[in-house]
């Protein structure tokens, strides 16, 4: 049985991915921030699949030290139950914020959760991914378009615009996937971003406040059910051989911003490595 890790698996898109993958015979290790919500999600996933198909872990992925602890727990579980192999890591946990808020590490929260958490967790699970020729999937977004990374102030503390912070964090997801392929594709790891489209979830109503909360309440009405993007994640986990594209929407390749270059990815890796205290391999020269 192939094991997948899904972050943000306690609601919205992540929960649907967990249900679908468990139903299709994957073993799911779900991650949420709240223990009770993890228990609830475990019940839901077990109900639609089979007992023992899923396990949940609570960790606040905003904090770097929690990511380290989580990676150790996941590593141990993978060692005991999956011969140390991780077939897919789905970095899906995400948030929207209406105000500049920081993590314990002093990092802006959308940047920290939507991008850095996946960057840090992936690094710590690389050995298990390598062993399985695994795949890394970032939940991206169409909103990554029309913006560049604010290299001089990635936390946007000079002039905080919540939407800019969100868009930038999603652009970073695509750059991260690109950079992973540059570094590890020849070692058998493939990375992707999935654009879920507009989806009816509560993401814009959690800890946002102000305008963001209001706008999202109106906007999400036009969104699709989270079951729909979940299928694209299933596709990327099942397709053999591993698809070659980078960005996917409704099980098909989709174009992406011209900002997504190897040079920008290198720059982002250097920044992420500094902020997370990790060191990925250098890009393999083509």
């Amino acid at each position, binding site marked *: 049985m192939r094991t997948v890790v899904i972050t943000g698996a306690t609601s919205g898109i992540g929960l649907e991915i967990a249900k679908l993958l468990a139903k299709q015979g994957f073993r799911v290790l779900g991650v949420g921030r709240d223990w009770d919500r993890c228990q609830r999600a475990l019940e839901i996933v077990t109900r639609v699949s089979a007992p023992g198909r899923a396990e949940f872990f609570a960790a606040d992925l905003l904090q770097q030290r929690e990511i380290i602890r989580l990676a150790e727990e996941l590593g141990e579980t993978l060692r005991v139950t999956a011969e140390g192999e991780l077939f897919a890591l789905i970095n899906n946990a995400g948030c929207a914020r209406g105000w*500049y808020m920081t993590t*314990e*590490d*002093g990092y802006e929260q959308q940047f920290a959760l939507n991008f850095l958490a996946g960057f840090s967790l992936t690094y710590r699970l690389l050995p298990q991914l390598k062993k399985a020729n695994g795949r890394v999937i970032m939940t991206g977004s169409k909103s990554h378009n029309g913006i560049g990374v604010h290299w001089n102030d990635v*936390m946007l*503390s000079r002039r905080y615009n919540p939407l800019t912070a969100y868009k930038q964090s999603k652009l970073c997801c695509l750059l991260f996937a690109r950079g992973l392929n540059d570094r590890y594709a020849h070692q058998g790891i493939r990375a992707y971003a999935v654009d879920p489209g507009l989806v009816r979830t509560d993401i814009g109503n959690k800890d946002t*406040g*102000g305008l963001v909360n209001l706008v999202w309440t109106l906007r999400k009405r036009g969104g699709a059910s989270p079951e729909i993007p979940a299928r694209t994640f299933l596709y990327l986990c099942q397709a053999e051989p591993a698809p070659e594209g980078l960005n996917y929407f409704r099980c098909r390749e989709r174009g992406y911003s011209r900002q997504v270059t190897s040079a920008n990815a290198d720059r982002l890796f250097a920044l992420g490595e500094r*902020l997370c205290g990790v060191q990925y391999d250098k890009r393999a020269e083509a």
Partner: protein
Amino acid sequence: MNVFISGAAGGLGRAMAAECARRGYRLFLTDRDSAGLEALQKGLERQFGAITVVYACDLTDPGSVDAMLAYVDGSRIRFDMLLNVAGVDFEGGFMHRDRERMVEIVSLNDGATLRITHAVLERRREVRPFTAVFVSSLACMFPMPLKAAYAASKRFLLDFAAALRQELKDEGVNVLVLCPGGMVTKKDTLAAIRAQGFWGEVTTNPLERVARRTLDRALAGKGTYIPGGVNKVLSGLGRCLPRPWVAAAIYGRWTRAQKKWLGA
């Protein structure tokens, strides 16, 4: 520039620390939350290459503060700036809250602030200008039912800062008091702001901007900083309307907001 920040692991403290680190200041950070301090130290180092010393300490405990000061003296650290950020608030009716919690508001917000201010001023770097910042609150402008002890403790800081400013003027010390409205520093403050509806939104100040401007103004020799136009108007009203009226008006608004917030 060597900066001492109390309450550094909280939302405003972190924003202030980040702003200082960005400017290349060296930091001495204290808070009760030692795990939070360590995370912040690492984060500031990674983000800005900042030189940071952290020391976890309960500022209401004179013994712990003495130990911290011994550490400061042992490391021969001297300061150019003090940011008094540490403070607590326990929302709600005076008689509905635990007695010791109520006292803690004053012992931390005022008692500990005096203790630290005295200690750090004694340890200021010689012949250099010094800057001290007190974090009061918009609440200090009014008698505030249901936040009575908190608002009064912040009033203490407002008056104390103004007087100290005068005392130390000729010694090259500038004292600034910051009176912000709400700031979104954690989930609870966000919930509280939301519960107050319109007034919550318009009195809320962006954290990152407050942090930056506080430093700018304090270094420029200013004495008071009330961020936001609406807040300036409200504090003006607080000063010229009769205090019983103000208290009655605030009581009405807060009881409604708190009912919503506490989900009652």
